[in-house]
Every structure is written in C-alpha cells, then in structure tokens.
C-alpha cells in the first residue's frame, strides 16, 4: 500500500482546476485565425509575395525584439512566450503598405511595443491598440510611404528600377461619395473582387472572406464574444443603408462599404483587443456602435478615405469611461432597490 507520508504534497487555495485556455493559447488562436487571410493575400500579391512575407516577418521580429529589449533593460519578467508581441507584429504588417521600407516597419514596431504597450506597464495595461497606434504614428511621420497602395496585379520592379505600380484603394475611389464615384468603383472592382481580395491596399484589407472565417473561428473558440464585431459591423451596415448617395442601390452601397477597407480586420481582430476595449458586455456593444459611427463619419466627411483605424483608436480612449459607468447590476441588487422603493 502506498506510504502516504512520502507524498510531496502542495497546499494551495481553491479552485484547484483551471480552464485549458491561457494567454498564450488565446494569442495562438488569434494568429491561427489571421493566417488564412494573410496567406491568401500574400499569394495574391504575385511577384510581390516575397516582399509581403518578409515585411511581415520583419514586423514580428521587430516587435519581439523591442519587447525583449525593453523588459531586459527594465529588469522586468520576460513573457515573450505569451505571443502577444507576435500578434501585434502580424497586425502591424497587415495595416501597412507592402511597399513600406523595412526600417520604417521597425520604427512602427518600436512605437507599438515600447511607447504604446510597455511604457504603460506591458500586456493589458496599454489603452491604445498597439498595432493601430503604430500605424497612426507611421502615417503621421511618413505619409507618402504609408499611402502607397500596390495594385493587385503589380509586378515587382526590376533591380534598380523604382517604379511601383500603384492603385487607389476601393474606399479612395468612392471617397467623394457621389453616384459617379461609386459607379467608378463598381466598374473597377466587383463585389466578388472585394470578397476574394483582388484589390489594391494593405495586406489586411482583404480578402473579406478569409477575415470573416477567421473571425468566426475566434468566436467559436470563445476568444472573442460577438458583442463588439456585431455592434461595429451592424452599425456600419445600418448607417450605409440609410445614407447611400442618391442614385445608388442602398444594399450594394452597404456591401461595398462592409467589404472594402479594414472593417473586417478591424471589427474582428482589432476592436476586440482585450486591453483596449471594455470588459462588460453592454460596454462592448456601446464601444462597437461608437466605432461604427466614427468609421462612417470619417469615411464620409474626413480627409482620409478609411476610418477604421482612427475610429478604433478614438474609442480606445473612451474605454475607461465605459468601464467606469457601464457596470453590471449585481445579483440581488434589483430586489434591494425594489425593497427600498416599497419601504418608502
């Protein structure tokens, strides 16, 4: 019979079991969910594929390096294994032009990891989405390089040549918001092109199909809840249906607005970023609706064709407010109020 005296027992406080899911597995799931879209898009870039791939690798490596360097320098615990820096790296690459010089993406990753994330205390403490903040910083610093969008069928320039075949992104084409500009867009790209990613733009702007599949994967794995993406996409859809320019089919207008630009990437992968979105379900819905309204506003009236990035960054700044004022009603509180009312 076992001699129980020899057992090496540990004592700890309940609960004694934990769910399988940990920070690392969540980040891994996000990476898995991004891969189909990323790979399909990289493939579609044809002779630019290699560049797209190396830019992504460079971005990831940059993020990992900055994270490592900062925590080493500050003598803080190392958590590269949680893969959160990898997610930031992939997302940053996906919101930048494929043609971006390597050193620029390293600057972007520095800004994302060190300035936005680590200076505030590391994972979970930042209030802005690191990848989007990185992109915003790059756009402010290198506006030209950050708006050079490759045409879908561009060929990689021969050695020594600097000619890059560029194209306007779908949203830029319909920026004016008139029936004519919309007609130009529908002539350039079909909805199918958008859906399958045969458009100019960043790595992450398409293919909508794969991004939606990735989003569904995250929902099924319970990494994200439906509240933010549904509220966000739903708001954009509703606003577009109601505000289609005269002479344009509302449904078609809405569909183009949904599948063009960074909406799918933003709604499923960026607005849902844990650290920078509210923790309560109701707060998340308000957050999503806010993102949707601001996105539509910027697309329509702003000076940029795309509003996803800034709308999420703006809503990021309201997260603490939403968390402060939108609080769950605790169990037993309802009755308490009723009782007090009855007592009066």
């Amino acid at each position: 019979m076992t001699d129980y005296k020899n057992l090496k027992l540990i004592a700890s406080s309940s609960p004694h079991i934990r769910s399988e899911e940990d920070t690392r597995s969540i980040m891994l799931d996000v990476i898995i969910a991004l891969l189909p879209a990323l790979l399909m898009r990289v493939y579609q870039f044809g002779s630019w594929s290699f560049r797209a791939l190396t830019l992504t690798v460079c971005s990831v490596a940059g993020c990992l390096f900055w994270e490592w360097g900062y925590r080493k320098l500050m003598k803080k615990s190392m958590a590269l294994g949680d893969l959160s820096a990898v997610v930031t790296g992939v997302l940053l690459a996906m919101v930048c032009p494929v043609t971006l010089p390597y050193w620029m993406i390293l600057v972007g990753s520095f800004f994302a990891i060190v300035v936005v994330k680590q200076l505030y205390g590391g994972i979970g403490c930042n209030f802005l989405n690191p990848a989007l903040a990185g992109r915003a910083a790059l756009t402010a610093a290198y506006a030209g390089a950050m708006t050079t969008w490759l045409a879908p069928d561009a060929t990689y320039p021969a050695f020594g040549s600097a000619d890059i075949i560029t194209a306007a992104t779908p949203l830029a084409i319909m920026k004016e918001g008139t029936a004519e500009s919309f007609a130009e867009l529908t002539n350039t790209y079909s909805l199918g092109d958008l859906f399958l990613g045969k458009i100019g733009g960043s790595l992450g702007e398409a293919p909508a199909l794969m991004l939606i599949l990735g989003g569904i994967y995250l929902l099924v794995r319970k990494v994200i809840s439906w509240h933010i993406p549904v509220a966000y996409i739903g708001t954009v859809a509703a606003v577009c249906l109601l505000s289609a320019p005269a002479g344009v089919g509302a449904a078609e207008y809405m569909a183009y607005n949904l599948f063009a630009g960074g909406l799918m990437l933003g709604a499923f992968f960026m607005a849902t970023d844990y650290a920078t979105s509210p923790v309560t379900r109701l707060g998340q819905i308000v957050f999503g609706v806010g993102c949707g309204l601001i996105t539509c506003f910027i697309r329509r009236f702003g000076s940029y064709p795309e509003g996803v990035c800034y709308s999420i960054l703006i809503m990021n700044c309201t997260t603490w407010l939403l968390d402060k004022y939108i609080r769950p009603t605790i169990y037993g509180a309802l009755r308490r109020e009723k009782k007090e009312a009855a007592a009066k």
Partner: protein
Amino acid sequence: MAQSFFGGVHPDDKKSATRAKPIETLEAPAEVVIPMSMHIGAPCKPLVAKGDTVQLGQRIGEPGGFVSAPIHASVSGTVKAVEPRPSSMGGKVLSVVIENDFQNTISGEVKPVADPGGMTPEELVEVVRNAGIVGLGGATFPTHVKISSALGKADYVIINAAECEPYITGDHRTMLERPEQVIGGATLLAQCFGVDKVYIGIEANKQDAADVLNREIAKTGAPVAVEVLHTRYPQGAEKQLCQAISGRQIPSGKLPADAGCCIFNVSTACAIYRAVYEGMPIVSKVVTVSGSGVIEPKNLECPIGTPVAKLFDACGGLREDTYKLIMGGPMMGMAQYDTEVPVGKGTGCMLAFAGDEEQYVSDPQCIRCGKCVGACPIRLEPIFMYKYLMKGDRETFEHKLHGMDCIECGACTYICPARLPLTHAFRMGKQQVQADRMAAKARAEAEQKKEA
C-alpha cells in the same frame, strides 16, 4: 419552470470515473476520530471521557449554543482519548477518539418517530436538531436553525441535487440507489413548511437520477417536482439555485429565506428521512474518492471520523506522484496535507491529483479579457476587485465593487487565462474587511465607554 442564473463556467465534469459505481460500504476502521466541530457555529462539548464505553448513535458532543449541532458516536467501542487532533480545516480540533469494538451495538437513544405523518414543524425541528443534522453539501450550517428561521417565510422549498462540482457523484448515486429516502425526506419538508410542492433541482447530466426520482414520485404521489437544470458551475450554489428555480434573487447580504426560499442538500433530505424513520443521527457519510492520483476511484459510505487514509486504502491507494489532496470538490474544496484528518459531516469528496503539476505563473499579468466578468455568477467585476485589492484599497473593493458579495465560487479564477489568483485574493480581502469592521466596532465601543 427551470430558468437560469448569471455567468458560470463549464469545467470538464470528470464524473465518469465514479458515476456508474454503486456506493460501497467501507469496512469500519479500528479507530475513528470525531472532531467536536464539524459545523458552522459553536463547537460541541464532549459528553464522554477516556475509558467510557459508547454505542453507535450515542450522543457524545453537546451543542455549545443555538447555532450548533450535537455529535454522535459513529461506531460502538471505547473512548481512547479526548484530545486535539489534526482537522481538515487546518490546525487541531478537540476530538473524541473511539476504538471500534466491531459490535455495532446500537444505542438506546436511536428511536424512530412514532407517527411521522402527524409531526408538527416544531417536532421535526427537534428531531433534526437531536440527529445533529447540518448542511451535508459542505456548508455544514445546522439544519434545525435553517428550518426554524425560514418557517413561515419560505414558500419555495428546494432540494439541491445539482452536484455541480466536477468529480463528485455521491449525491447522484444516492438518488439512484435510495430514491425513497430522497423523496421521503422531501415529503417531510413539504409537510413541515406547508407547501404544495418541494422542488428538486438536478443538473441535466444526471437525467437518469431525475427519471428514478420521477418514478418514485409517481409511485408515492409525493408533493415533489424534479427540475432539470443546465449543467453549469456553480448551479448548486444557494443563490444560483434559488435564482434558477424560483426566478428570485436573494438580496445582497441576506439569507435565502428573505427571498422566500429554503434550500436543503439532497443528502440532508436523506438524513432527515433517516432521523425520522430510523431514528439514526448522522453517523456516516457518502464520500466520492476520485482524481488522477487515485488508483481505483469509488463512492464509499464510511463512518464519520474515518481517517481519509482509509478511504484511499479502500481505493487501491494513491499514485506515487500524487501532488495534491483536496477535501471537497476541485472548485471550492480545501487542499490537505495530512492523510490522518477525519471525514466530517461536510465531507462529500476526497480528491488526489497526480502527474503533471499545475504550472504557476510567477508574475501573472491581467490581459483585460473580461472573461472573469462574464463568468461571475454574482455579476461582480473580479478584474477590478483584484486591482483595487492589490493597491490595498479595500474601501473601493467593499463599497463600489461589492466585494463582500463574492461567494468564493472560483469561477473567475477558473476561467482567467492570465492565471491570476482572483478568488484567493477575494477570500483574503473579505477577511480583512471583516477584521476592519470588527476593529472599527471595538474602537467605537471603547470610545462610548470613555464618554460614559
């Protein structure tokens, strides 16, 4: 109709190891150690001394107050010692050690009630009190106090058969094997409270038990209804069960009776049945012995005071690489480091975990995923409670975040991907708040004295 409660988690129920195993009676040990405190409330005063002969069912501990319950000898034999012994609650507790004579001589005190059907509520309360019945689901609150404080207030009488903690199957087996006791106990409670129906709440993963109980109800025409509930932790917590069955919420800081509900564990109902129809007080307990460290998991019925080592012996022993022993379920049970601690009235499960140890995260970082908020059945915000406790801000924890309403169910800690020790922090925080309150009270009293 069965409704739902807020939040909750779905841990792997791990019940298959013992679900199909009938309750076995453990061979009584040569010696039992019966602690004089196995309930919430005042400890008992021993009624016997070293050298006394005791009989099975004889009262050996006199309640130390109203909120207390008597304690009985679980075997017949000789008192070997009355001394402090290690207890499952940590530290040592005054205990009566009885050497078993293996005669099972039943005490003359054990007498069934002559006319169970004609009992008044007061009579039932008295029987329950004398039988030393306490909340056998683990809460161990004296049942006679619960009944008398809820009489006249409760219109919902609920039997808790949710058994929502993973691994545990003792209640499940009890319902399958002893439906007459469950339904009989429930009928007594219906009679006592004067309600038309007593509700038995069962999780959907025990449909077979619900069927058996329903057959018994059909056979006897008992005023009992079985409600099949979602399988979700913590379905069996009082507040959550109350919400799921009656749709009512127990006001913060109040008792179920304040919401018109009175809840009894299914094994408590069986104990009431046995006390009335057999006159037998609480002398034994059904314990599920399971977990990866146990060679052959089982459901065992053993005398109160059996050292847990004997339970493991009966299950083929433990694996060499067992690293944790837990009394109770894995979500709320207490880790043990001594296999000599005895089975008490509230012990429903003994677990041994072996193999790969849990990985501790040395510097856990909250990633703000909000999963804890979604999981909390009280709808608290564990993420912020933890944050403020870590800052030492108990004021915000207590008042703004309602930290004192935490039921320490462990759902938030279970789900937290960053592995923050949330529940542990709340337990400590609540204790500190209590201590602060006591200190403040003492200060106020001292000042009053000074002024007077």
